[in-house]
């Protein structure tokens, strides 16, 4: 492999790419954490749900709607879908062992992946995002407007969610139900519906992440598979029950992996995933619940 020498311009571009990658991981990781926090379930179908809703967006745009017209429609569909999945598929196994629920989400992932292929076929498609593909000059470095847009949208989402959880009654109910379902019921919180709400919100987050990344990597049924793996890594890194952790973990992971892959010749693009794993393992050995997770102390 013949590599070009180091230049600050390229470094800045790689850094920007890393932040953009990280923003996508953060979005999906946030969805994973929301579901985990509210229902204690790891949703392996998160990526496929995102891909499915992105295809719906594509179909809508194919029929003439502009991106911003289709956007709220898709979010509404995603929300409804998330709620419906929770009520129909997850609810019957709510009290089952964790592993059973995990396998159900896996089955869901396979089902959605197959369904996407059946409805839309496996070919790659162009997805026209809301941001232009122009590049602008930021302090001498060409940066894509699209990348900036992706990062801003992600930050915006996180802010909205933070406000929601902190300052609204519904957000409070969600947090209460997650921590202590039984006491929450006593206070009158409809715990079952807060679970469904959590899934709905996560589905919306996934849909946004999908619509942000599709213009860059091209839309196809398997678009989210590798990204989901990185998102899991980011969620674990940041702490499975910390939304802030998911975002920080995502960006940190994206930047570290991109820079390591470019500047540590030995790693190249092949060892990026193992490098991510090592990174997380080291963090977990020091902080077993992730960077921002709360430690479940169980001294034995």
């Amino acid at each position, binding site marked *: *492999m*013949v*590599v*070009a020498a180091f*230049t600050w*311009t*390229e470094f800045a*571009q*790689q850094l920007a*790419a890393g932040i953009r*990658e990280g923003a996508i991981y953060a979005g999906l990781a946030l969805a994973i954490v929301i579901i985990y926090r509210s229902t204690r379930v790891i949703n392996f179908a998160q990526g496929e749900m995102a891909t499915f809703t992105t295809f719906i967006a594509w179909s809508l745009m194919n029929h003439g709607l502009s991106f911003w017209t289709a956007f709220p429609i898709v979010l509404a569909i995603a929300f409804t879908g998330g709620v419906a999945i929770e009520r129909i598929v997850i609810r019957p196994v709510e009290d089952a062992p964790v592993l059973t629920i995990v396998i159900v989400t896996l089955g869901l992932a396979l089902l959605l992946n197959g369904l996407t*292929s059946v409805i839309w076929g*496996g*070919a*790659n*498609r*162009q997805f026209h995002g809301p941001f232009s*593909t122009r*590049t602008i000059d930021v302090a001498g470095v*060409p940066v*894509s407007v*699209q990348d900036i847009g992706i990062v801003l949208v992600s930050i915006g989402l996180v802010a909205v969610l933070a406000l929601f959880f902190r300052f609204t009654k519904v957000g409070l109910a969600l947090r209460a139900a997650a921590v202590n379902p039984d006491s929450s019921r006593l206070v009158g919180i409809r715990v079952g519906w807060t679970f469904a709400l959590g899934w709905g919100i996560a589905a919306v987050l996934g849909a946004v992440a999908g619509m942000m990344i599709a213009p*860059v*990597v*091209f839309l*196809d049924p*398997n678009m989210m598979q*590798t*990204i989901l793996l*990185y998102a899991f890594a980011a969620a674990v890194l940041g702490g499975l029950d910390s939304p802030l952790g998911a975002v920080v973990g995502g960006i940190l992971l994206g930047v570290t992996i*991109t820079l390591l*892959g*470019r500047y540590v010749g030995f790693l*190249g*693009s*092949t060892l*990026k*995933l193992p490098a991510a794993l090592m990174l997380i393992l080291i963090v977990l050995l020091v902080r077993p619940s992730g960077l921002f997770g709360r430690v479940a102390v169980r001294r034995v």
Partner: protein
Amino acid sequence: MGGRIIFACAIVAAVAATSAGARPSATPGVSATEIHLGSSVPLSGEAAIAGNVARGIDAYFKYVNDKGGVFGRKLTLTYLDDGYDPGRAVNNTIRLIQQEQVLAVFSSLGTSNNLAVRKLLNDAKVPQLYVSSGATTFGRDYKKYPWTIGYIPPYSEEGELYGRYVVKNVKKPKIAVLYQNDDYGRDLLAGLKRGLGARAKSIVASVGYDPTSADVQPQVTQLKASKANVLMVFAFGKFSLQAFNAVSRLAWKPQIFVNDVSSASALMAIVPQKAANGSISIVFGKDPAAPLWRNDKGIKLFQSILKKYGSSVNSRDLQDGYFTAGMATAYTMVDTLRKAGKNLTRQSVMNAATHLNEKGNPFVLPGIVIRTTPSSRFPLTQVRLQRWSNNSWHPFGKLISAKP
């Protein structure tokens, strides 16, 4: 506990009952009325679009059957999905030989896939015909693997053609290469270096990517930083698309060469055209989407066969070059079976395949002669260069040789 054992035995008995033990015959896959061939192709996953090759073959076989088949025998193709995964290709091929008992395995797709099954096919003395991969080894290593023969022009020769073109036509070339980090990509790169000859130092940057990458923009960013004015895209499927996307977003304008396998019109049409225009590739088949062949008899035949005999075919498929490539291979296969004679054995098929002299395959460029000898096992060795503009490919220049 006893009940569960009985239940288990019942299942086992059912399994035993449903295994049809195939009757061994003189030549597997051949009966008085049927010739049974097998193939392992990607029908799902990253490379699913390339699986259309098998669907093209299937349609062509049905057409031939309607006209009486080969010496009265109808052709059947059993094609199994391997998702472009060599491990599954191995399983499929074992199933094709041991359960389906096919005469030969042909047009299986993928360099690694075909490498994985080559030994077991040769050990079982089953012909591995018209491999859908341009790795040179399939045509070159016949002494060790006498039952194997390739089909499409070898990748390393393709790379060499690009190298020679650059030397002749690009002033002060500085070449950047994006390649898939496996045998397929590296074959192309090695050929390129050979074609550049003394000017091999014009390669200023080359970066491999792993097929498990999510996106190749970081690699393209790195290549741009080398200030190259020529870019070789030796990629596959969605990675080619991402490469063009990245080139466009980085506002880079090199002369792009894209390798044949990634050059399908369907793919080129959806990338940013600013980046795609001017790209150069090679071609050996007639591209149904190219305006040049709109009124061509061969393409008209192709479309009528696909409409009548294709399964689950839509209007986009009529312009899909993978289907045409499939029919081209099928045409050669039928030609081979006819040459192998009425007394059809695996050996006679192999003899026919290594003595081809086929002119007039309606699905490849006019003037191409598909020729093989036992020691020269590269059926397709003639190509033309083509350039992308106005949303389609335009061949230019004469037929050139891509013979190793």
